[in-house]
């Protein structure tokens, strides 16, 4: 089993709560504290964003976080160095979320080797669809890591072939458009998940995009195997800056409890 799939299996009810934060926003020192605090608050897997200059799949909240982190001159090596410090006191499962060029430019294999060395689980690359995945998947698999596949409300018949090759978990994009808080999620998540399960009954599916309340998280987790919350947390960090750690921990605790009580 992969480190990512293990993270689902290790949760109290087999359902994972996955918070996302952008590394280096507001500073890497705060990111380090946030990772540890979110792990303590019940996060099963943490999605750590390496900032990119042009995050085309993100809404305004996470775009701004990327630019703030880059203004701090945060680099890929700096993010790995921060993870190294986290590893001195926590083995919380971690997955990197970034864009293809960040990994490609670093050297796909070198990126995977560094992640493996740090006991991380792999990458989520929103601009690498199924057709382009092999270029990344071969070196990551060789390092024992997963390149997570995404499915979207427009995927339809593609879901089966994507699921067949998926590793770790399937990231189920709840809505059209980019990341950001939504008052309502209208997509039939259950139908998407059941298409995955038809092909791969044991492969976890977690839902992201638009989730901000414990109620939404519980509902999404009930229809799948987990919930991912990004923009709502990143917004809080953007507003509270250095003072964000405690409020984020409290928020994550509520979201994690909601996911862990889902049936």
């Amino acid at each position: 089993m992969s480190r990512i799939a293990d993270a689902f299996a290790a949760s109290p009810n087999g359902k994972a709560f996955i918070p996302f934060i952008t590394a280096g926003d507001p500073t890497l020192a705060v990111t380090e504290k946030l990772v540890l605090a979110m792990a303590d608050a019940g996060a099963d897997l943490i999605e750590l964003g390496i900032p990119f200059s042009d995050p085309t799949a993100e809404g305004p909240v996470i775009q701004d976080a990327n630019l703030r982190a880059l203004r701090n001159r945060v680099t890929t090596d700096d993010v790995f160095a921060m993870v190294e410090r986290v590893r001195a006191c926590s083995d919380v499962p971690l997955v990197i979320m970034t864009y293809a060029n960040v990994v490609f430019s670093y050297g796909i294999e070198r990126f995977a080797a560094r992640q493996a060395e740090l006991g991380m689980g792999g990458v989520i690359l929103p601009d690498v669809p199924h057709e382009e995945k092999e270029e990344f998947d071969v070196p990551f698999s060789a390092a024992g890591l997963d390149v997570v596949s995404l499915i979207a409300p427009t995927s339809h018949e593609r879901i089966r072939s994507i699921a067949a090759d998926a590793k770790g978990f399937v990231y189920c994009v709840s809505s059209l458009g980019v990341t950001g808080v939504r008052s309502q999620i209208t997509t039939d998540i259950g139908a998407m998940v059941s298409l995955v399960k038809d092909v791969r009954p044991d492969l976890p599916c977690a839902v992201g995009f638009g989730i901000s309340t414990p109620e939404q998280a519980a509902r999404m987790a009930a229809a799948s195997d987990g919930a991912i919350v990004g923009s709502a947390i990143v917004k809080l960090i953007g507003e509270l800056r250095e003072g964000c750690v405690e409020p984020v921990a409290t928020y994550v605790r509520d979201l994690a409890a909601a996911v862990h009580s889902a049936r």
Partner: protein
Amino acid sequence: MSGKGARGEGLAASLGATGPTRVKLCGMSRPEDIETVNEARPDYVGFVVDFPRSHRSVASEELPALSTLVAPGIQRVGVFVDAPVENVARLFVRGAIDVAQLHGHEDEGYIARLRSACGVPIIQAFSVRAASDVACAEASSADLVLLDNGQGTGEAFDWSLVRGVRRPFLLAGGLTAANVAQAMASVHPWGVDMSSGIETDGVKDRQKILAAVRAVQAEGSKMGNSSASRGRFGIHGGQYIPETLMNAVLELEEAYDHYKNDPEFNAELTDLFNNYAGRPSRLYFATNMTADLGGAKVYLKREDLNHTGAHKINNVLGQALLAQKMGKTRLIAETGAGQHGVATATAAALMGMECVVYMGREDMERQALNVYRMRLLGAEVRGVDAGTATLKDAVSETFREWTQRIDDTHYCLGSVMGPHPFPTIVRDFQAVISRESRAQMLEVEGKLPDAVLACVGGGSNAIGSFYHYIHDEGVRLIGCEAAGRGIDTWETAATINTGRLGIFHGMKSYFCQDEYGQIAPVYSISAGLDYPGVGPEHAALHDSGRAEYVAITDDEAVDAFEYLSRTEGVIPAIESAHAVAYAMKLAPSMRPDQTMIVTLSGRGDKDVAAIARYRGEDLHE
């Protein structure tokens, strides 16, 4: 330095893995060599230490000063010939080298002593002249072996001998930019080592070094691309976009494949081209310019005379018609200076479609007239504040909008870029330029042109100008990039001349970016060339050498803008003036019986105020 921690970790860890072929550049001895190495970014750089018999030898006391110049991420290899173990260990412990390469008569006992002295990863070199040499290499306890034809004499050896080697190895001996791809395909080495093949007269040659690393990366990346990937030009292209858009681009490809061969569709498009856009565009013999430059006969392909004043209308009419056939009722587009936005708004008005144009807030202020034109044509213009608030951000924002609303909406992309099938669709619609110019040239001159010149931003007018000559080997194809204030400054947009291979906006191609892959802000006086990437087909034409890409500065382009206005009574777009500038350099070096075509992609009315300001006149629209 943040990258230091990454040093020395890579060799042993990556030996077992598959991946791109590594490059080692060996025998560096001067600080200027290191500058070139840092630019070329190989995986390893080698120094021949304390071996005076070699002209590349560096004394061990001088090595630290040299090796500290090497950029983070490039591992430094000390190459030793029977050196005392303590000397090797001292250099490693002092941080002057990351890897030791043994090139003399070192035996297993030597390797064991070196290992107990320090943790340096070890490469052992073997001359391969017979099968027995291969057996010795296989038995070595070094972390990696290097297989060479001798003591760095630089002749290529019989590659068939090494095909049977079962451990990862570095291939060396006589490798150059010209033969390295064949060696890689033939023996699949873990890495390649080059030294004499990147020198001229015993000195490291910048051009040869850059070409060699590019050749390895190009061949390696071809092997690395996913087998399911579609829409490749050499190693470039592909479809690097969110899953949400995949069915939309697949549907677009299917529709295009159908309609491009549909006589009715083509008849409708030809009718729009001829009766609405004013095609065919003239091939004008520039008599005064030819006489003044005193060389080749200069012809201008007058895309500036098209409706809306530029080549952009060719692509937009094609895509709008295709979108209409697909049942789409709404067009969205990005625009930089506003030319593509105006063309899209024009087509939408003609065909009764809704139109939304995304434009960087900065550009909206600089091009207020075009914003008004688009609104006049019934389009909605949405300002983009994200990032640098210029063209690349407008492209990103249009992609974001498309993921939000796909069913009724077509993204009318403005250049030969983005995910497949856009680079092919846009090229095919722009290829009308060379289809016409080829026939026109044959009619007036009775022969093909000797050179075709066009400016390149994303590259749509250039690919349209080149396309029907690609198989005419005698026709030089020359793309003119925007150097801005110069390709040795940060204020440039010359992607092929200064960029690196990357993945952005849906495609693999060359991009202006920093060492961590962050897309760089670019600059040119010409808003239409102010984009950090280039279309994948141009990147492939550059790799194969079929087309040449030159860089033209702001100053040269402005001079050409004024020159053509004065000499021929034609005011060119500042974009097109980049091609005119290179024609002014090239024509005098050609014979009077030779000919060239310069594509005037657009007219210059839009630029007049900006050029006046460039010349110090306080003129505003």
